[in-house]
Each structure stands twice: as C-alpha cells, then as structure tokens.
C-alpha cells in the first residue's frame, strides 16, 4: 500500500468508495441498534428475573 | 473441636493473648510472637521434651506456624457413599515442631505429615469414599482392636503421651467447684486432632445419680449436688480417672485402634447375580450358587475349570453391626486383587455420587435383587507400617474415637530429616495413580541464615506452589506450617487461634457479602450467632479488657464485647434492620462471677454482690432434630429450638447418628447470646453405660476384636445441668426430665467494698446506716449483726453462720450457704470474710454500699430501649455473663443513619448506604474512637463482633476455618 500514491487511491471509482463508506456507516448504525437492543434487553431480562425472585 | 465446658466455668484463658494483647502493635507483635512465643512454648513443652522425648506426634505446630488454606493439588471434595450419605473429604499437609540451628532446619520423625480426613467416619460395606493422596478410594475392610493403657499420668497444661504412636491426653486446665478440683481433658490422636474437651473429676457424684432427682416441672431452689463423671465414655473411647487433682491427673484409657484397612481405588462393577451360573469379570468367571448358609461365590479362570477363590457369602446391608462379621460378608483376595460383596437392592445407588460402571438393574426395580459388587485395584494399609510406595513414610490409621471406624489417614515421615541451603528439598510420599506414580508434594526451605529461614514453600505434584510461608522479613525460627482447608486445623490450631485471628497486622478483615435476593429474616435474634463472615474487631479502647482480682487475689480477665447478629437489609424498603436481640453488649470474666468478685460493667469496675439463681426443670417434652428448614430461596422459616424454663435458653438437637444400629443423640443448650453452652450433651440409652465401666476386662495392652464395646451415657449430667432421656430416635429425643440453672436478678455496686474488723458491740457507719456487731459467738461459730437507720431504729438484723465444715464444703457456689454469710438491706450489703475466725472475738466483714439490683427481661433503667439478660452458668449457678440487648428492631437507613446505645457507650454509624449495599459503616466507642470502615467491601448486613470475651471467642472458634482462610485471602490480595 505504501507504494501507491494518494491520488490513485481515491481517483477511480470515488463513488464506489463513497458508497462503501455509506454502507459502513449504515452498518455501524445497525450494529449500534442491535447492540443496544441486545444489551438493554439483557439488562432488563436480568433485572426482571431478579425481580421475579428467580435467583 | 468443640471446646468443652471451658466456655463456662473456667473460661479458657489464653494467657498469651491476654498478656500481650493490649500492647500489641504491628512490629512489636511479630517480634513478640517470635521471641516470647518461642520461649513460652519451649518452656511449656519442655516438660515433655526434657523427659528425653522429642516426639512431635500428637502435638501442634509452633505458635508462629503459617496457615495457608490452599495449595492447588490438595483436594477438598464432598462425595456420597452408596446410601447417599454425604462425606466431606479434605486433605492437608502439616509440619510441626521443627527448629533451625546453624542454618539447618531439623524435623523430627513424625514432624511432617499428610492427612486425609472424612467428615464423620468411613466404614466397610458402605462404599464410604476416602481420599488417598488425591485419588478417590473406597474403604472396603477394617481390622480394629482395643487398646488399654493404665496409670497414664498427666500434669495440668501438659499433653502426656499415652502411646509412642502419638496418642496423648491433654489436661487443658483445672477449675473447682465447692473448692474441689475438676479438669478439662482432651484425647489427642497422632495427627493432633481431637473431638471435644471432656470434663472429668474424681470428687463428685456421677451422672447415674441424677436418676434419683425426680422434680416437677417448674422452678426449684438450687440443688446441693454437683454432678460430674469420673469416667468420660465416648463410644469406643473411655477415659477413666483414677485420681484428679488441680495439678495432676491419672487415667486408665481405652481407645480403638485400627490395625489394617483395605481400600479400592476403583468404583465397583455391580451386576446382579444369576444363580448356579456365572458372570464375566474381565477374564474371570464369577459363579454364584445357593447354599443353606449363604451364597457360594467362586472366582474361576476364563475356562471355568480352575477355582481361584471361593467363599460362602451373606449379602451385606446397611446395618453397621455387620462390620463385626466382615469375614462372612465379603471375599477379599489381595493376590487376585479382587474384593466381592453381595449387596441387596442396588437402587440405593441412585443417591450416590458415583454410579457404578455397570448396573444391570433397571432403575427403580427393587424386588429380589442381589448383586455382586466387585472391586479391584486394592491396597492394604497397615497402621505403623511403611506406605507401600515410599518407605520413608509411615501409615497411621486414626479412628473416630466415638465409632472406632476410620476417620483419618495419616502418612508421616519415618526418619528425621534436615533441610539446609545445600539440601533444600524433602519429598512427600509417592502417590498411587492410574498413570503416573509421583511424589505428592515437596517441602522446600532455603535462604537459611544462622537461626532463621527466609524462604519456605510447598509444591504439589503438578509443580504448583504456595506463597512463601515465611511471612515477614526478619525470617522465622522454624518451618512449621499447616496447609489445606481441612477441619483438622480447628483442633490442631486450638491453642493459637485467638492470637491468629486477633493479630492486628492486617487490620480488620472485611469480607464481601454475597448479595442475595432473599435476605435471611427472623423475628427475634435470640439464640442466633452472627453471620459467619461478620467482621471481628479485636480491640477497641471503649470496650474494656482488663485484669481484675477477687478477694483471694485470684486473677481473671474481665472483658466486654459488642455483637450484632442477624441484621439484614430490606432492599425493597431500603432499610437496614437489626431485629430484637440483634444488638447486644456483653460483659463477662474469664471465669464465672461469684459474689464479691469484680467485673466491668459499661466501662466501670463493678462488684457483684449477690444474685438469685435457681433450677429450671422441664419434664416430658420432645426436641426435634435441629434444622433450619429452608424455603426454596434458602431463607430459614422454621427451626426447632425448645425454649427452656424462663426462656433465656433453648434446647437444640444438634446431631443424630446411628452407631451399631442404635441412635445416638448429641444435644446442646443454646444460650441467649447464640453460643452453645460448653457441654456436649451426648445421650444414647441402650448401650453399656457408666455402671458397666468396671465390668469386663480392662487389661493393659491391646486386644483384637471386630466387635467394639460401645459405651454411651444413658443420662447426662454435668454440674447443675442434667438430662434424663425417655426415648432417643434419629429424628427426635423425648426427654423425661431435664434441669438447668436460670437466673432472675443480680445485684452489684460500683463502690469498692471495704474490709473492716468488728469486735462485739462495735458500731460503724455504713452508708446511711449504722452497723453493729451485736453478738459474736465463737462456740456456735455465729455472728449476729444489726443495722440501724439514722434515727437509731433497727431496720435489719441477721445471725450469720454457723461457719462450720458444712458451710465451707458448699461455698462459694451453694446459694443457701451464700445466704449464711451475707446480710443486705436496701442498697447496702455486708459479707463475712471467709474463712471466718471468731476465736479472738472479732469478725472480718466486707461492707458494700450503693447496691443496685436488676431483673431479667426488664428494661435497663438508663436506656429502656435495652433489656437486661443475665446469663447463668449451667454448671454452678453463678453469674456467667450480663447481656444488654435491644428490645425493638433497630431500623437504619440513609437519613437515619446513627444509633447511639447505652448512653453513648457505643455508636453505630452507617456512613454510606445505597438502599441495598452498605458501603461504609463503623462503630464508635465512648471515647470517640472509630473502627475502620467495616464495609470496605460492600456488605448486606451489620453483623460484627467487637472485643474478645468468651462470647465472641466461641463464635470465632465456630467459624475458625473460614476465618483463617479469608484472613489469608485478605492478606494476599485486594479482594
């Protein structure tokens, strides 16, 4: 990678790169949503089970 | 391990601790342990050592021995036998009585041992599990005998050898009643373990005499008789006193001895038998055929032509008396390496941890099943003989002194050894393993200087090691240690436990609570002990611990303590709750307080003047086996204490067991403070008992018998407490009659009584009154005193005496005799100085003013939130302890976070409470001294013990193993 000039890297298919980063951003967002759902769900579940007196 | 009545009549005085405690601080303490501990111990044990004996067997490690709870390779496991009974197995390694000289550490023969312990005992035909150097094994057979030793002499405080193998009798201490001596004794096994302390005397009537008492239920005056046995009978062990004085005791001892044990290292192969034909076992055929007297079992070779072994067997069942007929019940051939039992109904196995390799019976099928249980991988161990894999070690098979069955396997070094910088290692015994017979551990000591060692540790068979056992920089003068979470430590370390736990070098250990959704809630905390993980604050200035002397110049330690028990956090309401009786102040002396003796009460020196105690009798009642019946969440909802008499004590059926087919009950009296009364109430009618002791041969030597003679008390009595059972079963005990002392009130003064000598007719002022010796009668040995008020009116008159032999024979404990030497009116009291010499026509008196009386279960006048609970000695009716406890629940929370008790004598301050966890709290004494934060790690209760007195001491002893272990964890890490 070190040998490739900066210009060439961005040059062709700049749109594609754009798309990719957009996809990455979307993925990051989705990851966040899933993580929040997973973690908050877990937290609430554990809290609820304790409240029920299961452990 | 349960300290006998020491808790009571003569509180075990840890001389060391008391003497050095107040001045103890970090560095000084260490040096002190070093020098004084060493010297004191040398002096103490020189009585035995100087007799040309350096046998460490039966003795404990030196005082500064390191305790380490864990070494990777040492196993702690709970397994079940084939009847589903739990057996807690534990291993430990101990090194004792070593010393360092000229850069070398010397360990005597028997100084280093490995011990494997089971929680109760292991018997044949039960598949009782055992650990042998880390491997699971099952006990198959035992060969036992009885040993009798006559005229064993033991001096007080000494541990006299009964047998060179290491059995010893320990005369722990002597005390007296009616000025006649009795002592507390323990019978020690070679490993240093012992079950209980036993009170024995030759001066009083024995337990069988209590059958004559026969009193109605209710309150009775004190009995004149004091009961105590001259022969402690404990199942298979007997300690028969020939003579006991305050200085020395002579005994005849009978105890069980295990000669030989056979174990299997493998689970059995269980397969139901087929009559008149065979089952395959490896390359062998096992035949079974019906005979009149049993089932003929034959082991034949693979062709079935050659009989390798044969025997007529009867099926083994759970009844343990069958142990006596071991030969009829199993076929054991060590050459073939095979052991066969016939067992009935293998469905028993469902409760067992180790299902057999094969079980040819469908689950739950019960009818007519007789199965082979075939064991291989056998090993025979003989007591006193070398360990089969390593001649450097000797096997010791220690019996449970009660049942005579196997309690402990000990492997000890046969020859003395020396460790030095050049030769720093000594290997432990070689273990028997499926895949690699290897040394089980290695003791290493290096970096020796002239008299000290700096580095010493133990490695296990997989090369894991302990931390350096020399805990301080200046090194140590021996390499003693105790490693492992074995209950054996409790009896082995008995002498030093208090000093260990109260060692202030590491501050006050606070253990993290295990938070639970269901805190343990009880309505009243009486009879309960504090949380086992409660912090222990050994020293606080506001709680007195001082010497006091009585009129005879005898010295006692008077000490106060504060205990909080069974407190909890109601996290849904965000409150901390201390239930009624959950917070108490306790004061007591190292011995019971007799009239005239000083003690400390709320920080001030007080003098006990008199008390009202009595005998409480309860007839025809039943005690269920004690269980905290837990709900699913582990919360106790029911327990079966039976309150006794005035309700300050309770009866508890602590343990039941079956010995030789009969139930044996162990009961305890639980005191208000939550401690057990010292005496272990062992009753088992139907066995041979006290009256049979002299029958049967008590010949010196040993006799081989599979049929042990069991002796158990058919009635219990110790001092003033007695119990006559009607029926003993494993689940409950029906009691015909039981009596124990109670106390209604006590009187003391803060003014020191003064001593005066009066001649006949002489008059002196006493408080608001004038006291006159009206008549002194040397002939009848009587004195008549009168008390006049300021206007000269006689308000009280009493003739004291006669001061005759009968009086002196029953003093100081007998209440009617006490009355004969005292006179009181309102706030004054006059005692005659004993012995009274009236020949010169004068009498010596002790005059006390400012007397205050307090009644049991009444509010404490200065702080009515507290109730007065005097506690009486179960032996001698004297005042044992005064407790002041909270009448109503104490509720603390974030806002209301301070509780000041007993006029500012102490203060409980919750500094940080989040509604669930207590993150910071402390106690302040009357001088404003604070404890460190008692919740450095979050706690879910306020349970605590402050100060050392008999009460906290026995709580500590009860949780010794855990406490020693978490001290170590506390020392080593942040958590």
């Amino acid at each position, binding site marked *: 990678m070190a040998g490739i000039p900066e210009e060439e890297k961005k040059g062709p298919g700049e749109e594609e790169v754009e798309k990719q980063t957009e*996809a990455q951003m*979307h*993925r*990051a*967002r*989705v*990851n*966040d*949503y*899933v*993580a*929040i759902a*997973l*973690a*908050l769900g*877990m*937290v609430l579940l*554990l*809290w609820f*089970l*304790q409240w029920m007196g299961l*452990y | 391990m349960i300290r006998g009545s020491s808790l009571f009549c003569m509180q075990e005085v840890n001389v060391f601790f008391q003497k050095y405690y107040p001045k103890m601080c970090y560095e000084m303490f260490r040096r002190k342990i070093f020098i004084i501990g060493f010297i004191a111990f040398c002096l103490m044990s020189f009585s035995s050592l100087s007799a040309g004996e350096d046998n460490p067997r039966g003795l404990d490690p030196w005082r500064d021995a390191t305790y380490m709870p864990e070494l*990777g390779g040492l196993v702690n496991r709970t397994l079940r036998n084939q009847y589903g009974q739990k057996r807690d197995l534990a291993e430990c390694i101990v090194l004792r009585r070593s010393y360092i000289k000229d850069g070398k550490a010397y360990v005597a023969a028997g100084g280093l041992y490995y011990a494997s312990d089971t929680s109760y005992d292991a018997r044949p035909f039960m598949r009782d599990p055992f650990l042998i150097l880390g491997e699971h094994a099952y006990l198959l057979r035992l060969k036992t005998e009885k040993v009798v030793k006559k005229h064993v002499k033991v001096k007080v405080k000494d541990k006299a050898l009964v047998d060179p193998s290491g059995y010893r009798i320990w005369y722990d201490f002597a005390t007296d009643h009616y000025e006649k001596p009795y002592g507390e004794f323990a019978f020690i096994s070679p490993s240093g373990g012992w079950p209980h302390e036993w009170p024995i005397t030759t001066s009083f009537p024995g337990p069988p005499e209590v059958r004559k008492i026969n009193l109605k239920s209710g309150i009775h005056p004190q009995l004149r008789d004091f009961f105590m046995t001259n022969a402690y009978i404990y199942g298979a062990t007997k300690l028969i006193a020939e003579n006991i004085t305050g200085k020395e005791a002579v005994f005849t001892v009978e105890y069980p001895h295990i000669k030989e044990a056979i174990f299997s290292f493998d689970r059995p192969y269980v397969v139901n038998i087929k009559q008149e034909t065979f089952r395959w076992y490896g390359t062998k055929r096992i035949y079974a055929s019906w005979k009149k007297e049993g089932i003929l079992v034959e082991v034949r070779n693979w062709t079935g032509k050659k009989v390798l072994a044969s025997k007529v067997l009867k099926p083994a069942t759970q009844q343990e008396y069958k142990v006596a007929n071991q030969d009829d019940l199993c076929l054991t051939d060590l050459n073939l390496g095979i052991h066969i039992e016939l067992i009935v109904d293998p469905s028993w196995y469902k409760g067992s941890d180790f299902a057999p390799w094969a079980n040819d019976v469908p689950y739950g099928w019960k009818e007519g099943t007789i199965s082979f249980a075939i064991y291989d991988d056998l090993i025979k161990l003989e007591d006193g003989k070398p360990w089969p894999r390593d001649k450097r070690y000797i096997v010791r098979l220690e019996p449970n002194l009660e049942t005579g069955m196997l309690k402990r396997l000990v492997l000890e070094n046969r020859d003395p050894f020396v460790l030095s910088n050049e030769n720093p290692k000594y290997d432990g015994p070689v273990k028997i393993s499926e895949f690699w017979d290897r040394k089980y551990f290695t003791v290493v000591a290096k970096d020796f200087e002239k008299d000290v060692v700096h580095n010493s*540790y133990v490695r296990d068979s*997989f*090369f*894991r*090691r302990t*931390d*350096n056992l020399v805990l301080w920089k200046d090194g140590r003068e021996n390499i003693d240690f105790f490693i492992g979470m074995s209950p054996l430590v409790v009896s082995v370390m008995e002498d030093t436990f208090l000093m260990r736990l109260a060692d202030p*070098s*590491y*501050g006050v250990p606070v253990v993290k609570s295990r*938070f*639970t*959704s269901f805190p343990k809630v009880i309505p009243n905390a009486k009879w309960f002990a504090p949380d086992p993980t409660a912090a222990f604050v050994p020293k606080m200035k506001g709680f007195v611990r001082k010497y006091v002397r009585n009129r005879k110049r005898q010295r006692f330690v008077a000490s106060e303590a504060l205990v909080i028990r069974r407190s909890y956090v109601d*996290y849904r309401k965000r409150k901390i709750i201390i239930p009624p009786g959950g917070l108490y102040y306790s004061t007591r002396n190292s011995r019971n307080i007799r009239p005239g003796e000083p003690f400390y009460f709320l920080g001030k020196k007080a003098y006990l003047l008199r008390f009202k105690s009595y005998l409480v009798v309860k007839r025809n009642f039943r005690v269920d086996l004690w269980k905290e019946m837990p709900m699913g969440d582990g919360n106790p909802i029911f327990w079966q204490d039976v309150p006794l008499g005035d309700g300050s004590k309770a009866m508890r059926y602590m343990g039941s067991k079956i010995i030789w087919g009969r139930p044996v009950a162990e009961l305890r009296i639980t005191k208000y403070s939550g401690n057990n009364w010292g005496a272990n109430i062992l009753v088992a009618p139907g066995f041979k008992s006290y009256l049979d002791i002299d029958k049967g041969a008590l010949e010196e030597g040993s006799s081989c018998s599979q049929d042990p003679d069991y002796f158990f008390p058919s009635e219990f009595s110790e001092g003033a407490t007695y119990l006559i059972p009607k029926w003993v079963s494993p689940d409950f005990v029906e009691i015909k009659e039981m009596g124990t002392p109670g106390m209604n009130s006590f009187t003391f003064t803060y003014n020191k009584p003064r001593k005066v000598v009066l001649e006949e007719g002489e008059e002196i002022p006493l408080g608001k009154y004038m006291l006159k010796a009206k008549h002194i009668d040397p002939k009848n040995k009587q004195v008549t005193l009168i008390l006049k008020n300021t206007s000269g009116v006689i308000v009280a008159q009493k003739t004291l005496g006669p001061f005759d032999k009968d009086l002196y024979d029953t003093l100081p404990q007998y209440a009617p005799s006490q009355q004969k030497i005292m006179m009181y009116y309102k706030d004054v009291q006059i005692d005659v100085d004993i012995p009274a010499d009236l020949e010169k026509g004068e009498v010596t008196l002790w005059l006390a003013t400012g007397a205050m009386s307090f009644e049991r279960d009444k509010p404490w006048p200065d702080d009515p939130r507290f109730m007065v609970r005097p506690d009486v000695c179960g032996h001698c009716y004297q005042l044992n302890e005064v407790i002041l406890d909270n009448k109503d629940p104490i509720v603390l929370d974030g806002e209301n976070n301070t509780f000041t008790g007993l006029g500012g004598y102490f203060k409980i301050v919750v*500094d*940080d409470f*989040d*509604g*669930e*966890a207590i*993150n*910071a709290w402390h106690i302040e004494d009357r001088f404003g001294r604070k404890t460190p*934060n008692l919740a*450095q790690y*979050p706690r*879910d209760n306020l349970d605590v013990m402050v100060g050392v007195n008999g009460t906290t001491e026995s709580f500590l002893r009860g949780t010794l193993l855990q406490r020693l272990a978490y001290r170590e964890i506390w*020392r*080593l*890490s*942040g*958590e």
Partner: protein
Amino acid sequence: MTKKSSMWSTLPGFRESLPGLLALIIIGIFCELPGLPWPITVHNLLHYIDQVLPPIYGEGLFTDLLHFNYVVISLGVGILIRNVVGVPRSWEKGLSYYSVFLHAGIIMLGSQYLLRDMVKLGTLTIIIMVVFVFGSAALLIFLGRLLKLNDSLSGILAAGFSMCGVTAAVATAPMIRAKSEQLAYAIAATVSFGIFCLIGLPYLGRLFGISQYSFGVISATAVPNSAQVIATGYMYGFEAGKVAGFVNIGRIVLIPAGALFIYFTAMTREVLGGEKLNIWQTVKERFPIYVLGFVVVWAANCFHFFPKPAVFAMNKVMIWFFTLSFVGLGLQTKLSDIRKAGIRGAIVGYLAGSIKLVLAVVVIVILMKHGYME
C-alpha cells in the same frame, strides 16, 4: 422506507455469518466464559502457570502483574490465531459482529459503576483523582498532537494511561473509532508501563519516605491497570496495597466521564480543523448512539435501579460479550498493523505517564509534608 431497508440489509445474513459466530463462541469457550463448567481454558492455563511460578507479594505473574484478564486473553488468543494459523474467508461475515458484542458489552459496563463508590475516598483523594484523570488525558492528547499522532491512537492511549488501563481503553475505543491494532497497541503500552511502575515506584516511595497510605494513593493515581495498581501497592507494603485497591475504585468510577471527555477532546480537532463544521452537528451525526445506551444503564445503576444480584449477573454477561468481541477483534488484527503504529505512540504514552507519575509523587509528598495526608 427504502433507506431503512437498505440500512438493515448491511447486516450479514444468518447463514453466511454462522461459521464466524461459531468460531467466536468456540474460541471464546477456550478463553473462558464465566459460569461455563469447562476447565480447559487459556485463563486456567495461565492461572496454573501462576501457581507454579513463585508469587510476587502474593500476586501471580500473568493474572495479576501482567493483567491478563478476559480482554487481554481473548484479544491475545485472537491475534495469535490470526497471525500464526490464519483465518478462513468464510469467517469474515460472522466476525464482523464483533462490534455488536463490543457495544453491547460497553453498555452493560455501565451497570458496574456507581458514582457513590467515590464518596468513600474522602474529598482530597477525590480531587486528586479527578484532576489527575482529566489532566493526564488532556496532557496526553496534547502531546499526541505535538508529536502528530493519530487522533484515535492518542485518544485511546489517553484512556489507557489516564484511567485504569485496559478497561478504560476498551470502553473508549469504539467511541473514538480506534482500530483493533490501536487498541492492542494501547493495551501493550499500558501493561508494559505498569510493569516499570511496579518495579520503580516502590524505590521512589522509599526515596521520599512516603507513608503507606500516600503510596497507595500514588499507585492508584499513576499506575494504569487495576491489578498492577494493587500489586504495586503490595510491593511497598500491605497497607499501601489495601489503600491502592480502594482508591483505584474511585478511578474506575470515573471511566464513563473520562471516556466522554476523551471523545470530545480527541475528536474535536478533526471536526474543527478539518471541515470547520458546527460541533453540535457533527456530534449529532457521528455520535455513536450506543453511548446513550451506556449512559442510560449507568444512570439507572447510579440511581440504584438494579439490585446487587442482578449487577453480578450483568457482570457475567458483560464478560461474555467482551470475550466474544475481543476474540473477533483479535482475529482481524494483523501484527504488522500494530508494528506500523510505530514507536511514537508508546513514547507519548510513556512520557505522559511518567509526567503524571512524577507529578503525583510531588503533589502527594507536598500534601504529606503539609499534613493534608496521612
């Protein structure tokens, strides 16, 4: 609608991510997932080695002194597998789930901190803690800029060196978009710096005649990793070890605040210097929303919404999440990338760490001299 569906479509499907996820779980099990009765784990192996080696002041080499906790172990195992054996392509989709686990873990991390744990320490200690945490974070970011360090790297180093090392770095990493190799780099730097402290700090302490209590405070201020903090304390004395342990809790509590501080300090240059955008807008656009989840859980915990038993259970689940995510992260980290990060980061970290250490000693010696500290 279309946008939304396209957003969700970026999530790899179940079937294609299955191999990777399975790999995570299986490797995770071998690293050790708490509560699972499975004895053959890397954690147990290290623990065994610790028991074989002579303990140093009661501390094991790997688990305590080198701070090999679940994060380090799982990351290390992941990196080892990636760089020694290699990772098949079919795992890639599944491995990309690591960030889900990471964020979920961080959210649950909120349940482990209680602001009121600080209260115990006393005002002076709290002030020292707060000043040193934020001060050293700022200092490190400043030094990073001076030496032209990547923002994410200086951010994560700041987290590691100013708070309690590994955990803080982990909590901060996704916020400042630190790459896995940067995280590994930061962890290596903090742990190695901790070892120097472990050896050097007690000498300094004896040189200045620092009391046990003050030394405990110093080690909790200056040494990065929790386990090393306590070990350093013990090197000096029992009392110091105890104090260090307790004071360290105060610093752990500051992780959430510290992480946010670093996020705003480290990320502002890019925002301000680069495109000259409104800060608020950038924050709105690029702020990782899972942080909100973290804040919610943390706040709920500070208000004592979760009883202790639930908190303990959450801790276990959190370790599961972290183990899975760090195995995934490790499996995507090339050693060559770490090497590429160069020595400069370490220099910055060490420099800032040393400055902090010296300042801590100086401040506390002064406080001691004037009788403000025991």
